[in-house]
Every structure is written in C-alpha cells, then in structure tokens.
C-alpha cells in the first residue's frame, strides 16, 4: 500500500523508481528524496485520444506525474482525505476529487448518461457529476478528497441505498446509479423539504459518502 494516512487531511506516498503516482497539480505538501513533478498535459493515462475524451467529458482535472525515489506528502485545500484500495475492481469517482492514485491503475472516462435516460442527465446536473465520470481499475490505491469525513456504505441487492447527491463521493462495484425524485407541489412553491432528489444506488458494491453537503 503506497499511501499512508498521516492524519485526516494528509497522506504520504512512497515513490520508487519505475513506479508512477499521479496526483492533482499543486497538491504536494512536502517531499524528501529525489522526486520530480511533471505536469501531465494528457490529464492522466492513455494517449492523445484519451486526453481529447477527457477534455470533452470535462474530466480533465490537471494532474501531475510524480516519479523518482522518496516520500511525498499530499494534501489539498484542507479537505479530508480517504484512501481506497482497489484489488482488481473499479472505482467510479469525479476527477476533481482525485488527490492521488497509483500509476498501476487504469484510468478511463465513462459515460454515465446512458444510465437512466433523461433522469440520468438531471442526475448529472444535480450531483455535479455531469454526464461523465472517471473510472479507475486495477490493483492499487486511490486517495479521494471529501469535505468532512468519509463514510462507507455497503450496497447489496436487497438493500439499495439512497444518498444525497451533494454528499456522494464515489462508488465501486456493480452498481446501478439512478436519480429518484420525490418532487411534489410543495417543491414547486418553494416549500419543499430540500431533499427532493436522491441518488439511488443498487447492486453489489460500496458507496462513499461525505459528511457534508458541500461539493468540492
């Protein structure tokens, strides 16, 4: 596990020669050893086509490649950091929540709009996800940022979970993701409960929720 949590807002990554770590630009707090930080024009892995894909999908958070030998500390904006270890499965997360991730992980952009039709698009608007999201697959660790602490909630087929779209951070596993609404006449006249939209997650997996409704 290359990421060690130093405290709730700071992680340390061990960097070895030949092993890359990607991190959000400007998120380095300190390092020791011989480490270089290279701006990553492509915004991640893959070739030019991946870059164009990310640009179109608006998932092109500025990343940098961290290489060399040493220890690097990452933290960003005073946000809480949560380390997720992937063992061959897939994590779906917004690119701007990525603090750092292993270079061993495969990064790609996924079209979420196909899930749920028109509601899917509304969901993208409400959650701030847009129609695309970043997926990371493989063996390795991901450090995601959240406002407030992160809670993990398991999803089982018997027990779908409803999540406030603003508190949603990431999810993993075979999860169907749809926006359920409880819009009524009260919402139309501005007397709603403020919880008209919820994200309904069903399937097998895990959803990560932050203890705040503030988006990053």
């Amino acid at each position, binding site marked *: 596990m290359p990421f060690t949590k130093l*405290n709730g807002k700071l992680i340390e990554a061990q960097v070895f020669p030949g092993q890359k770590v990607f991190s959000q630009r400007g998120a380095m*707090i300190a390092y020791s050893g011989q480490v270089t930080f290279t701006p990553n024009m492509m915004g991640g892995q893959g070739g030019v086509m991946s870059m164009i894909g990310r640009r179109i999908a608006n998932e092109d958070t500025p990343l940098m490649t961290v290489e060399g030998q040493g220890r690097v500390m990452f933290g960003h904006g005073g946000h809480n950091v949560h380390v997720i270890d992937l063992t061959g499965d897939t994590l779906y997360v917004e690119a701007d929540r990525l603090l750092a991730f292993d270079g061993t992980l495969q990064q790609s952009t996924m079209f979420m709009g196909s899930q749920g039709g028109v509601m899917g698009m509304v969901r993208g608007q409400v959650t701030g996800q847009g129609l695309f999201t970043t997926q990371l697959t493989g063996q390795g660790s991901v450090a995601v940022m959240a406002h407030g602490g992160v809670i993990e909630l*398991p999803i089982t087929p018997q027990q779908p979970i409803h999540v406030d779209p603003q508190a949603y951070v990431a999810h993993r596993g075979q999860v169907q993701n749809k926006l359920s609404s409880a819009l009524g006449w009260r919402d139309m006249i501005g007397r709603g409960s403020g919880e008209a939209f919820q994200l309904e997650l069903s399937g097998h997996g895990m959803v990560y929720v932050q203890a705040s409704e503030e988006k990053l």
Partner: protein
Amino acid sequence: MSYPPQSPYGQPGYPPQQGGLPQQGGYPQPGYPPQQGGYPPQPGGYPQQPQQYGGPQAPLPQTAAGGPVVHDVTTLPSNDNVNPYAFSVDLNGQYFLQKGKMVAYYGNIQFHGIGHGPLDALIGRSFHSPLHAADWVVAEGQGKMILADRAFDLNSYDLEDGNLTVRSGNLLAFDPRLSLKQSIIPGFLTLIGTGKFVAASNGPVHFVEPPIRVDPQALVGWADCPSPCHHYDHSYMRGVLGGIRQLTGLGGVSGEEHQFEFIGAGQVLLQSSEKLMADINIGHVPAEAGIPGAGAPSQAGRQQPQQQLPNIPGLGNLGDLGRRFGL
C-alpha cells in the same frame, strides 16, 4: 524542547491510526458482504488518534453518557486543548494574544492594547520591535481564557531555551516569558526562550525532519534552525522551452516547480493543506541596505541589472529573456 503530541516524522510506527482503519484492508471481492447489516459500526472508522489532538476527525470529547462535556472553571483544561479547535489558557499574570482570538474567559481578566500605560514597558521586553506590537493584546489577570481562531486547528508548543520560527499569521498567543522577534525572512516571526505559545494551522500540524522540500504554502514554521532555502525544479526553468513554458504557461506547469528546502538539524512544521492563513502585519524593517524585505537595494551597484545585460545583436533587447534562455 518538547513538541506537541506527535512523534517525530520517520519513526517506525508513526501513524497511530494505521492499524485501526478497517477500510484500508483488503476488500473482499465476491459478493460484497454486508458489514453486519445496516450502517456498519466501523470499529475505529473514525480513526482513533490517541496521541494527536487535532486530527480533523478526532471526536469531540464526550461524557460516558454520550452527551457533550460541559466545562466549568475547574474542569477546563489548564494550558491545554479543549478540543482540536480551542485552547484553554490558565492565566495568572500576563499573556499576549493576537487581536480578536479570545472567545471566552472565566475570572478577572483585562485586555489592553500594548502601549497602554504601564504596559508600554512590555514592548521593549517582549517584542523588541515596536512596529507590530499594536496588533497584539495583553491579557492580564487571573482566570481561564479560551482561544480559538475560525475553527482552525490549534496546537501549543513548549520551548525550553529554544527557538522556533513561525509564519506570522499562524501565531495566536504566547507566554510573555518568550520574546518575539521578526525573522530575517520576511513574513515570519521567531520566538526565543522558554515558554509556551499557541499556533493555528489549516489542518493538523505535521512535523518532519530535514532534509525535506516543502510546498511554500504548507510551511508553518521551523524549529532549531534548519537552514531554509529556495529550490526550483530547474528542468522547467532551463533552455528555450523552459523559458516559454515559464512565461506563457504553455505546456503546463505542475505547480510544484518551486519549493522550500530545509537542510540541517531541526524540525519543520507543516500544515495539512496548502491553503495559507492570512498573514498579519508584522511591521516593517528599516529600509537599509542589506536587510531582506526592506525594499532597499541590496547593493548600490546592482540597482538595475537589466541595463547591464549585453544587448545581443540580432535579437533585439529581450531584457531578462536573454539570461533565461542562456544566451
């Protein structure tokens, strides 16, 4: 000197919460079994931080019954943190604090600006520079005083015949036995002597030992005089491409081309975020030659270095560009 409740960086078993994080363990692949149904209790899901007061997820103190702790004048900690964001000073005499950082007090305490009548003598004794003393308040009397600053993490530091240099905006309060001086490095203050002071940081403070390079915005201060210097990742600054990149931003910058490098014995204090706390005015230094940050030319002969650059024929006068491109 003893530092707050963190073990020095790099010691084995450093993060106390490491073993207690169940989420970081292997993730059972098939079936994602529900963790004991419903909302998983997550033993230690909020990492227990027995040593460290100031983790953002450190739970607020609670009574056995589960309610919040109600403090009174006897149960308030004495010269210790009430919670990660508040610090209680057991006052008996004088204490210096930044303006507006007191949130509550018990007892008989007066707050005066420095320079108020008999307190005038303090300037000479504790500040050594009259220019920034106006931003400080003297709390005088007996009682308990709670300090806080916009819910930033607070830590107290004990100096024993030591020295610690801290960014001016982070210093909150200090014991008048310490003397406060402006550092030669602009924007920093140095505390010298024996006593306690309280500093705020954006996220918990982390201690590291040199050699280390740190993000300039994450630096809170340093103790025991490691030598601070600038470090540039020179591959960006070098050659024609580097110059274009520097000037136009084309090709992207990683945002980490510039760090502070610390060499030597001592400790470096980092905050967990690169969001700076606003500096407070620490006064000016006299505009004399040889004083950094004074605005005076360092040497009379080097006032206009650009005019001394040779005007390279055929390139026009590119000013400093020529030097950057190594021409």
